[in-house]
């Protein structure tokens, strides 16, 4: 038998492996490679897509009547496929005039007819995001009369004179994307209006076309050179599904990707200051909140709700396990939205909490709640458990999967709910309409207030309704500030933190925008240079 010395074996394996070195120092100059967790995409049809990663894709495949400027999100919605609009005297009809000379990626012209059909289609399909349009009184039955194309204008008639800003903010949502009618009609199956085909294909006029979507693996986009906003600088965008933060970090350091979007606080700390890597902090729209169910005998008592406001160690959490990725925000409208408030009055004060409870004659109590088995939520729950214990309250935590907690929450069976709420469109009503809206507390509902059995005071609900109809933006803003002041004082649902996305990227990447608080990621303005 031939015998090999250990040294010979080592040498042989080194020779065998060494030529495999595949990593390059950087990605090609006109290709943007992003690592992200994209396993939540279930459809790329704008009338159905409602997940974060799905909207990140449709945002770039399609254009809408109005859109955001990625380099100036604060300016709010801007003319996009519509170049101007006007509101009728009764305030119930908005008529938008389409830009001339714009084409879809197929080469077909973008017509008012396409815009009207796209909105009608979303209402008729009635998928998850359809309510963004149906809240204006549109139904599958009446939408053909309410949304009409005439020449190069499209008019939308509503059941009430809603605020112009409210309507246009909703038209900037993914569900209002303008779709190439002629192309989609070639792929209709039964009465699906092309839904099955559009789930995995694209027919838009946005800056990128879909080259490939392999679920849980990759999304590839190719630039649409005739994009009406100018040819995108990055000719290809590749979004790889990389679930592990440390794997994203390794690839970023090796230069195999340009942007890593899901690094944990410790990996962010690890790459901070490394040559060639920069971190961009961007506040997003998601709110981490705590709901106290009013079905719970203890939590339904006002003094307990007040005491709980002092039992949350905001600073401690924001400076430790939430560091950099969540910041204190005690209001339900996120920063970046009309009417956002930066007042954060609640402070961590065990003694104050104890005093409130003692004054009310509450000497103790036990609450058993369900928490999703995500590290962040469990850490928050355990921090709360510790501070509640100091005030004489016992919190028992049952860990379960997200789906199980959600099931229980929908059945109004979670005493203390810890979770996130992400806005559905760029208007404050998206959050006001769920945190402070519960028209039928005894019946069936689906708003956050209903799930916490919080009977929102009639005056507050009227204020929420009135804010959607207020045409003057300054007045509208003040209305939301007032609603939130009242909410901070008395509501049993406590907004705690607002999400901050920390994207780590090669320093060659310029003008990256994840879409801020109001929208999804945009690629067409991104460039790479020295």
């Amino acid at each position: 038998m031939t015998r090999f010395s250990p040294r010979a074996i080592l040498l042989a394996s080194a020779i065998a492996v060494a030529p495999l070195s595949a990593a390059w120092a950087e990605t090609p100059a006109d290709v943007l490679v992003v690592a992200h967790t994209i396993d939540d995409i279930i459809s790329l049809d704008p009338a159905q897509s409602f997940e974060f990663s799905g909207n990140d894709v449709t945002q770039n495949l399609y254009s809408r009547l109005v859109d955001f400027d990625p380099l100036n999100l604060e300016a709010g919605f801007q003319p996009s496929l519509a170049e101007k609009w006007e509101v009728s005297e009764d305030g119930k009809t908005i008529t938008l005039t389409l830009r001339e000379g714009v084409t879809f990626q197929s080469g077909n012209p973008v017509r008012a007819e396409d815009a009207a059909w796209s909105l009608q289609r979303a209402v008729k399909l009635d998928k998850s995001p359809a309510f963004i349009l149906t809240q204006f009184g549109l139904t599958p039955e009446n939408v053909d009369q309410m949304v009409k194309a005439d020449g190069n204008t499209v008019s939308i008639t509503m059941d009430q004179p809603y605020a112009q800003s409210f309507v246009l903010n909703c038209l900037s949502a993914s569900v209002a994307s303008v779709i190439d009618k002629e192309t989609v009609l070639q792929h209709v199956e039964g009465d699906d209006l092309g839904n099955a085909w559009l789930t995995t294909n694209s027919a838009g006029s946005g800056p990128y076309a879909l080259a490939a979507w392999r679920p849980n693996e990759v999304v590839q986009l190719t630039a649409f050179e005739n994009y009406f906003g100018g040819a995108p600088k990055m000719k290809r965008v590749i979004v790889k599904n990389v679930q592990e933060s440390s794997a994203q970090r390794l690839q970023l350091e090796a230069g195999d990707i340009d942007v890593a979007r899901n690094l944990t606080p410790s990996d962010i700390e690890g790459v901070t200051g490394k040559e060639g890597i920069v971190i961009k902090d961007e506040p997003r729209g998601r709110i981490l909140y705590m709901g106290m169910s009013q079905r719970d005998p203890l939590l339904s008592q006002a003094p307990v709700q007040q005491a709980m406001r002092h039992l949350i160690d905001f600073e401690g959490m924001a400076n430790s396990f939430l560091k950099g990725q969540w910041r204190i925000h005690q209001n339900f409208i996120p920063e970046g939205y009309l009417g956002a408030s930066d007042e954060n009055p609640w402070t961590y004060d065990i003694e104050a909490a104890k005093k409130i409870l003692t004054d009310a004659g509450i000497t103790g109590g036990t609450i058993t709640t369900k928490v999703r088995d995500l590290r962040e939520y469990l850490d928050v729950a355990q921090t709360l458990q510790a501070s509640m214990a100091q005030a004489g309250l016992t919190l028992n935590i049952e860990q379960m999967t997200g789906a199980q907690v959600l099931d229980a929450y929908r059945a109004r069976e979670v005493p203390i709910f810890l979770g996130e709420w992400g806005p559905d469109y760029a208007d404050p009503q998206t959050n006001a309409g769920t945190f402070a809206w519960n028209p039928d507390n005894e019946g069936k509902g689906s708003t956050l207030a209903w799930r916490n059995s919080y009977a929102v005071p009639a005056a507050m609900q009227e204020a929420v309704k009135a804010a959607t109809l207020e045409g003057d933006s300054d007045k509208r803003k003040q209305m939301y500030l007032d609603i939130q002041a009242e909410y901070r004082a008395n509501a049993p649902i406590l907004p705690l933190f607002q999400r901050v996305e920390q994207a780590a990227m090669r320093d060659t990447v310029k003008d990256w925008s994840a879409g801020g608080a109001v929208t999804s990621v945009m690629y067409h303005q991104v460039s790479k240079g020295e």
Partner: protein
Amino acid sequence: MTRTAPTGGQALPPAGAAPVPALPPAPGSGRLAATGRRARALGGILLSLALTLLGLLLVTFIIGRVMPIDPVLKVVGERATPEQYEAARQAMGLDQPLAVQFLTYIGDVLRGDFGRSISTGHPVAEDLRRVFPATLELAAMGTLIGVLAGVPLGVVAAARRGGWVDQIARVAALVGYSMPIFWLGLMGLLVFYGILGWVGGPGRQDILYDGMVPEVTRLLLIDSALAGDWGAFRDAFGHIILPASLLGYFSLAYISRMTRSFMLEQLSAEYITTARVKGLSEGRVVWGHAFRNIAVPLVTVIALSFGSLLEGSVLTEIIFSWPGIGSYITKTLLAGDMNAVLGGTIVVGVCFIGLNVLSDLLYRFLDPRAA
């Protein structure tokens, strides 16, 4: 002369898989009768295959339905109104009795329709065509490494019992059994990809080669070799070698220990003493006599090891962003996406049964008595 009796076949899950019945010698009858018997035997195999699969599907289906996970929520989202929720539930057929749901599904599968996955939006058949080759390629490479290293290691460890090779094999197996794959995978990536840059990073290939090689088998190594694109081949190899070595290491630990114990049993047998007395070289005694006699049980061990890798190694797939069937089934199961889970179960079940039949056929080839 003693021989180790075949131990495999029936040990392979899922229980009840089809062994190949031995054909009795034809008593002077014509070719027609022999063909008839073969056809009956083949029919028997197919029937037991079908029953096994049906049982597997039934169990999976019931588990999927009793799980406290609501697939409707995945479709309508958490903000849906009760009316939207109910409409989706009916559209998905979930308001029907369980038996009706199951029979409808089986009917669709028989027509070749595996349905659409609610968590990927794609037809399940298309998803499986994508994720299964990824796992097959990884499992095959892993097993190859496990066999090429584990079998010689086990044989040498037994032949030189107590020697340094035996000690190394023991430590390697111990570490292989006890080290968390998650940690080992991350360390492997850090050292061989992050620091040394010897291998490719997570994923099956680099973006430069993505979509460049025509899809024939969907096994990247084979497809790139068929296309003669050696750059793509080297890139695919550079990506697969680390996760495959990791999986190979775990199967090495198992294969080498089993090989060693099979060999020890043979080496203490009388025919080995006879062979030595006759003056045969040690190499001939070990490889020519003892090793040939462990081939049959070894086939079972290797098939078992390959089978377990084919189910997919979920953690390895997650660390290496490997789009395989393990993470596909896990993810879809957690979403209550039963079309996808059942489709994946059929593929894995067929693989196990196929491996079972294959190892039975190999016994006949390796063991003259079974032929």
